[in-house]
């Protein structure tokens, strides 16, 4: 295992001590040091702000990509799975309507801003909602074999 020798250890402790003393220093002390070092405080601040800002954005963008990937995987799984839904569009609509009658608490999930008028839902939307309810284990249907 790599070990530090005495000089390296000594220097590390001195440097860590200096960093801690800086954290505890008063703002006026820090400003005085910046002035003595002829540092342009605004340039330095902009540089640091840029590092922190881009680190934050990079992290959030990565999380967004991960969420999108997870959503796409889940959506593809639902699309790829065969569910025993009724054969005809009318039966499927009837099933969704009866489910909503039994479980009105599901309504906010389905009746969104996009789909305010339930009667205007396309069969594709109805099937999609049924598949999602089924995937979530929230739909009880007869086990009759279907193609959907």
């Amino acid at each position, binding site marked *: 295992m*790599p070990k530090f*020798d005495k000089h390296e250890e000594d220097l590390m402790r001195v440097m*860590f001590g200096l960093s801690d*003393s800086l954290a505890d220093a008063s703002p006026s002390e820090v400003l005085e040091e910046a002035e003595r070092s002829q540092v342009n405080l605004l340039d330095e601040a902009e540089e640091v702000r840029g590092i922190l800002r881009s680190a934050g954005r990079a992290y959030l963008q990565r999380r967004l990509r991960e969420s999108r990937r997870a959503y796409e995987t889940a959506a593809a799984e639902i699309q790829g799975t065969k569910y025993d839904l009724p054969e005809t569009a009318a039966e499927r609509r009837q099933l969704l309507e009866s489910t909503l009658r039994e479980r009105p608490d599901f309504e906010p999930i389905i009746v969104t801003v996009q789909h305010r008028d339930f009667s205007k839902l396309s069969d594709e939307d109805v099937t999609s909602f049924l598949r999602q309810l089924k995937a979530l284990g929230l739909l009880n249907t007869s086990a009759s074999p279907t193609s959907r």
Partner: protein
Amino acid sequence: MRQLGGRGTRNECATTAEVMAAIESLSAEEDFRLKRFARFRIRGLGRAAMGRTYSCLLAQAVASTLQGAESKTKGRKWDKNRVPFVDHLFGAVRSISTHWKEAYERRGTEAERYDWETATEDEFGDLVRPTDLAADPAADPFRSCAAKELLDALDRRFAKDEDALLVIEARKEDMTIPEIVTELEVTEKRARAAMQRIRYFMEGRL
């Protein structure tokens, strides 16, 4: 030390939006202080920094804080009601650099395992292969000489500054300012002033 909430203030972990807003609200003096703080840590790490710079250290502190804002178990949580953001970042940088040092000291067996067994992703999603960071377990004479030269330079520069010399020697023994005050009978004001002189001398050598 800056204080926010006192007794009775409830703990509340900041959200990601609050962390991002806090970055923008740091003052120029705090940004400057953070940079120098991180540079001292990197200089102290020496070869354990593995080529990483102060900006890597600051970036990791932010990523870890955002992770803490989203996760119950991962990352570092910023208790926004109790700790000023800049102090939270000092703590994160301190802890990450200590972790880097310890991780470096544990190294040496990376080459004995396959990459696919040990590769992980960091907070930014970049693949980290332990063999990329493999350390030579042998002592590094160059680093050791460089460390000795800098320590000698400090001794020479402060040969006539008793307080500064005392503080340097005390730090080599890992003593804190309160310990220096108690055990070496130097007033806190003198100890801090000596630290400031040493910091100023070191500024051009980081």
